């Protein structure tokens, strides 16, 4: 027990280091960016000398670099990520208000991808048949197709031709269907391959043989006994999964004109709203640092032998 506490403390300290590191890199990058941040903040118009100086002072750009870095870290500790140039709101508020639509989208996409991939894997694992070939080809297609193109195709067909779903935005459930499906398609191929490999390995295990010997049907063996073991590799993938969902959200929210973290990230980068970009980077780094700890913790729970491996 003591070792687990120590392990956790060590990992949390490392996570804090990672987040501060990411923030420092982002802060440094902000300083290296060519162009005057005061001008970016004021927009296109040329400000008068007095207004310029006042804004410069308000933003703290008249202070020397170490002082500003100190202030930046101090603000970070208080959860203050600065002020967005474009939206003229605190970055923390912007991110807070945009987080939920993205989480909704990500959860819906994950759920959909998981169910479809599990169905594909359970029906095709260990079977050399035409059906499996078709499934493999479909997986390759899904992995190789850019998500934004799928989104455009779905929009063309379902929204513009059939008028089944709204063309843009909306908080409605109908508005969630196409974006979630688009995001899911990129995941299904990978999920199905990982699950099938896991299933095939599980089906060779003695416990499957004994289940069959008890007269358990093939479907029940696969669903009740083997699938559970096939899910462990999915835990390993969780970092990649969250990454794909977050990265995919940038594109998919833009295509479907949905509210969310991805879309404000895209507009912030295009408009060089650097405090907002930094804020998103810090939040993303925090999510990943915590996720990695959670995954390793989960491993230790699933398989105590991992204590030796996962330091």
């Amino acid at each position, binding site marked *: 027990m003591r070792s687990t506490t120590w392990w956790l403390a060590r990992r949390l300290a490392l996570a804090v280091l*990672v987040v501060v*590191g*990411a923030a420092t890199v*982002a802060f440094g*990058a902000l300083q*290296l*960016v*060519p162009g005057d941040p005061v001008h970016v903040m004021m927009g296109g118009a040329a400000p008068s000398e007095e207004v310029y100086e006042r804004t410069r002072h308000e933003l703290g750009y008249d202070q020397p670099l170490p002082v500003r870095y100190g202030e930046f870290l101090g603000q970070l500790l208080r959860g203050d990520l600065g002020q967005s140039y474009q939206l003229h709101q605190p970055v923390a508020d912007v991110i807070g208000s945009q987080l939920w639509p993205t989480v909704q989208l990500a959860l819906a996409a994950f759920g959909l991808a998981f169910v479809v991939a599990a169905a594909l894997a359970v029906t095709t694992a260990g079977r050399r048949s035409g059906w499996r070939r078709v499934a493999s080809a479909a997986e*390759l*297609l899904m*992995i*190789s*197709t*850019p*998500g*934004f*193109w799928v989104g*455009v*195709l779905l*929009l*063309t067909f379902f929204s*513009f031709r059939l008028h089944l779903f709204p063309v843009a935005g909306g908080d409605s459930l109908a508005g969630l269907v196409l974006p979630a499906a688009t995001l899911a398609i990129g995941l299904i191929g990978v999920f199905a391959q990982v699950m099938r490999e896991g299933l095939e390995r599980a089906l060779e295990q003695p416990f499957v043989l004994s289940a069959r010997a008890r007269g358990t049907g093939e479907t029940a063996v696969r669903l009740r006994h083997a699938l559970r073991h096939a899910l462990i590799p999915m835990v390993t993938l969780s*970092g990649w999964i*969250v*990454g*794909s969902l*977050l*990265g*995919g959200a*940038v*594109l998919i929210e*833009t*295509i479907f004109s949905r509210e969310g973290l991805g879309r404000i*990230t*895209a507009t*912030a*980068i*295009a408009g*060089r709203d*650097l405090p907002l*970009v930094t804020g998103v*980077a810090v939040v*993303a*780094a925090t999510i*990943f640092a915590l*996720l*990695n700890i959670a995954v390793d913790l989960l491993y230790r729970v699933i398989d105590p032998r991992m204590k030796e491996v996962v330091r």
Partner: protein
Amino acid sequence: MAGVARRSAGRGRRRIGPGVAVSALLVALIALAALWPGLLARADPNAAEPVDALLGPSGAHWFGTDQLGRDVYSRVVHGARVSLFIGVGATGIALLLGCLIGMLAATCGRLVDEILMRITDVLLSFPGLLLALLVVAMLGPSSTNATIAIGLSSAPGFARLVRGEALAIREAGYVRTAVTFGAGRARVYLRHLLPNALTPLLVLALLSVGAAIIAGSSLSYLGLGPRVPTAEWGSMLAQGKDFLTISWAMAVFPGLAITVTVIAINIVGRDLQRRFEGRHPVGRF
């Protein structure tokens, strides 16, 4: 591991399947389009003909025309250059950086290894596209910057692989023999470690060209790639999206070009991977 051993023992030399052959032909065709687009498309990709705007596919315009009346087929063919440039360029950057970091980690002692690999871990856990977006945010949008951004964001994967390969090969008999016969450090690294780590590395590189092409077209879909008149698949798609109600062709063909390219590269890459797997341990498996 058992699977790898079985595969290499059982099959021996594999024949080239029809799917792989077609894919290799397609890759060659796309490379041709990138190098000499004029051979495949006669029309000027930037010649606007407003009278013929937003036409569907026809004998004169195979893939139809865009909102300015430019020939979409010609723009798709000419767009291969930018996409392949980003894909190959980014992979090249990732390969170089990855070799450098991986070799340093494998050969410069525990402390350097620990520091470099922890940083690599952090970068690997971060979504690639988000990392690339951050780099573009700093450098500003352009196709060169998109290439650099994607290259930087895929370097950690290569670093991991190179380190693993180098560590495994270092213990191999022939390297020990070379050391016994008095080969210097530099000679061992350059003549023995690097060439032997190269095969799995080049296969990974080929597969990552496909991923980099998707990443590149994603960035330019978001308006963070090459400047406007340049024919590029991602930005053509983004423009096409605005005219979906009038013409489907504009958005469908550039996307098809990306997908076909990436599938062809992936099929060839996977086939090579299967051929070379099992020769010696590859870090990731």
